[in-house]
């Protein structure tokens, strides 16, 4: 009969909390997230929402996602294979879902019948749709 595991050994064994993760990781994750959140908020409220700024805000969100994955969820090179693989596949599914939906719906919108005012214009000008 093996000796029962203590708290730290058990948490590491089930893959919940690697021994290397300490309070430093959480403090870095917290301060990093705080700075990114405040930076994104300042950018959005003090500057016009141009395409460049929208992309910047998207990058900041992804950066915070990465920071929290590393320092709060402790994902990294030591993460076991099943978890890493399902995480990667889920991200691919998420990407296909979101980008696919937006592209398809915008394309459909573009092919919709124009409203009455535009119809009138088209009929008078004789433009092809």
């Amino acid at each position, binding site marked *: 009969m093996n000796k029962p595991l203590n*708290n730290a050994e058990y*948490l590491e064994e089930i893959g919940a909390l690697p021994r290397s993760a300490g309070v430093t990781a959480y403090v870095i994750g917290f301060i990093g997230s705080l700075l990114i959140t405040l930076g*994104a908020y300042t950018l959005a409220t003090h500057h016009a929402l141009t395409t460049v700024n929208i992309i910047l805000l998207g990058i900041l969100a992804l950066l*915070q996602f990465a920071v929290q994955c590393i320092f709060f969820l402790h994902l990294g090179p030591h993460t076991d294979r099943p978890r890493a693989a399902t995480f990667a596949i889920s991200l691919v599914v998420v990407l296909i879902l979101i980008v696919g939906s937006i592209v398809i719906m915008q394309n459909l919108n573009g092919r919709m019948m124009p409203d009455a005012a535009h119809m009138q214009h088209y009929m008078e000008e004789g433009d092809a749709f």
Partner: protein
Amino acid sequence: MIEHKDNFFGFWLYLMTDLVLFASLFAVYAVFRGSTFGGPGTEIFNTSFALMETLILLVSSFTCGIALLLARAGNRGGSIAFLITTLALGAAFVYFELSEFASFIAEGNGPSRSGFLSSYFTLVGTHGFHVTVGLVWMLALIIALIRRGFTHSTLRKLALLTLFWHFLDLVWIFIFTIVYLFGI
């Protein structure tokens, strides 16, 4: 052989499917964002209010992580104290979210007003529902920790709850950015 070793991976799989669920709701929101049907658009959002909600959830994610660290060190009182702090912050978050919903509905901008508002209430409401379920779970776990202390069972549940809570904070980052910051 560690008992219930697979539970952790099972719960992880659940979180991954939840991620896909939220992605669908984000996609719906992105598509319906302009479908205001003559009603109000994203200008009804109060960005500084959303920032406050974001900070509350971020701090609660941090305190939840500390609770797990203290559990690892065997500090039961400290772990419970940080869990109660997390519980209070989470409850404040749900309260603020509900008051935001209530003010929209009082102005006649409920989920039935337009496609945009339907998708907004569904996306943010689903997140809020997850947080509420997490709060009930947390309360049950606090009671279990007070009564039974650290066993492998309560430790595992604490680790799963912490994972769930961090995950909800991750989803909120994108709600904050896509719904509130892009809505200015």
